[in-house]
């Protein structure tokens, strides 16, 4: 089963991290990522740019509204994600626990993938 781990945090807070702190957190996450990769669990991971770089399309109207920014203004923003292959939810939670280790705030949402479209690369 494929699981997505969606990583949320306040981007204002993350933007206030010192470079040392940012490097330290990413360094620790890289170690966890490598380990998950070696165990055959990690399929893909990415850090996203801040929501200020986003544009949002709102289908249903013509012309299509294209709005600057994320789809909703929230306290915490989607800042990155992992795609994991795990046998059970317990296994996914255990992987999530490891990914939570180097973080001190924010939230990790584990969402099983409903279907993977053919030829989409996973």
């Amino acid at each position, binding site marked *: 089963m494929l699981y997505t781990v969606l990583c949320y945090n306040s981007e204002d*807070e993350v*933007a*206030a991290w010192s470079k040392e*702190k940012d490097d330290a*957190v990413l360094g620790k996450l890289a170690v966890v990522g490598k380990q998950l990769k070696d165990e055959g669990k990690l399929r893909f991971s990415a850090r996203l*740019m801040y929501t200020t*770089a986003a544009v949002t399309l709102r289908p249903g109207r013509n012309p299509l509204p294209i709005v600057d920014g994320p789809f909703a203004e929230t306290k915490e923003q989607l800042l990155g994600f992992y795609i994991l292959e795990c046998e059970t939810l317990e296994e996914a939670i255990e992987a999530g626990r490891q990914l939570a280790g180097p973080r001190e705030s924010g939230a990790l949402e584990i969402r099983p993938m409903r279907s993977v479209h053919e030829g989409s690369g996973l």
Partner: protein
Amino acid sequence: MSEVGWIDAALTSARPHALAALLRYFRDLDTAEEAFQEACLRALKTWPLNGPPRDPTAWLIFVGRNSALDEVRRQKHHDPLPAEHMISSLEDTEGALVERLDNSHYRDDVLRLLFICCHPELPATQQIALALRIVSGLSVKEIARAFLVGESAMEQRITRAKRRVATADVPFDAPGAVERAQRLGTVAAMIYLLFNEGYSASGGEAHIRLPLCEEAIRLARILLRLYIGEPEIMGLTALLLLQHARAPARLDADDAIVLLDDQDRSLWNRDLIAEGLALVSKALRLGKPGPYQVQAAIAAVHARAGRAEDTNWAEIERLYAALEGLQPSPVVTLNRAVAVSKVRGPAAALEMIGPLEEWLDGYFNFFGVKGALLTQLGRAAEARIAFDRAIALANTPAEAAHIRLHLDRLLKDSTAATKAPA
């Protein structure tokens, strides 16, 4: 990572919003600052025990406001302060607060807080120092170090500036569209100045002061998050990111300046460039070009060139021409002339900068560019005069050293020429 790590980052990131809201509540900068300070002290005590509140900013505003009100009451009646446990569980009250305080509620407050630092009677460096103290929350010591002045001198400067802005009459009503746009422009200019103070220091030994650049980027990002559809704020943020991306390549091991053409582009920060490019594309598709967007677009052309010789100078010249139209200034024309020299040769560029001398006769870069163009044309004697003038106008030792390099090269070439067999 220690607990203090995340608390520090949370307090730093909450500061502009929380302080701005407290200022609106108390209408007095000192009271607002004290209230915020008090709230931070309590956060340091209670957050490690209870974990972070759901909305740190709302928590700090709530606790700061109450503690300042307590202080007023205490001075009146000498009542004891409320016990810690009374403020350590704020979930219910906080919940109600969170409903009301999304980003749009902070928008004009944070802008006002930044705007009052930009009092027109304050010289630019004092505006910057004040913003660093009030909005960023840097200590006087840190600011003094960044500006390379003594702590007590900086303390005095900030105190005086604060007194000046305290009497400024910045209304607390939500500004109208025109006023808001004016405030945004003023604040954007201050953030750009702050960045430039770090990017090309106006005095002292260090040529680049990275912390000032980083703080400018953080403030630009905060402003952009609040005004997410403003093309010029996108442009400003992109410009700062793209310029800052080159910082690791701008000085060599001996702190000598490395010109854009000679920089090791593998040292450029790819993440910052990617974000800068994303913001430039976002801004330009809105079809409302402005000076920051055009400057960011120019920086983007450089960032896209894998090697110096791949630079699309014709595009850069076109963009500088657009910038001249939006914001005519001799410095813009000087920069355009550099692009012209690459596209049409040094003679055309020299002709272009001729009329600028009357405006730029105190400007280091003007004589640096003039000397370089004269050198390319083989007019060594005139080039030397221009370079001598540039050295006299250099703002930092690195600038002077860079020009001396040109002079040494001239000297070597002329010796070589005299020694060459006829």
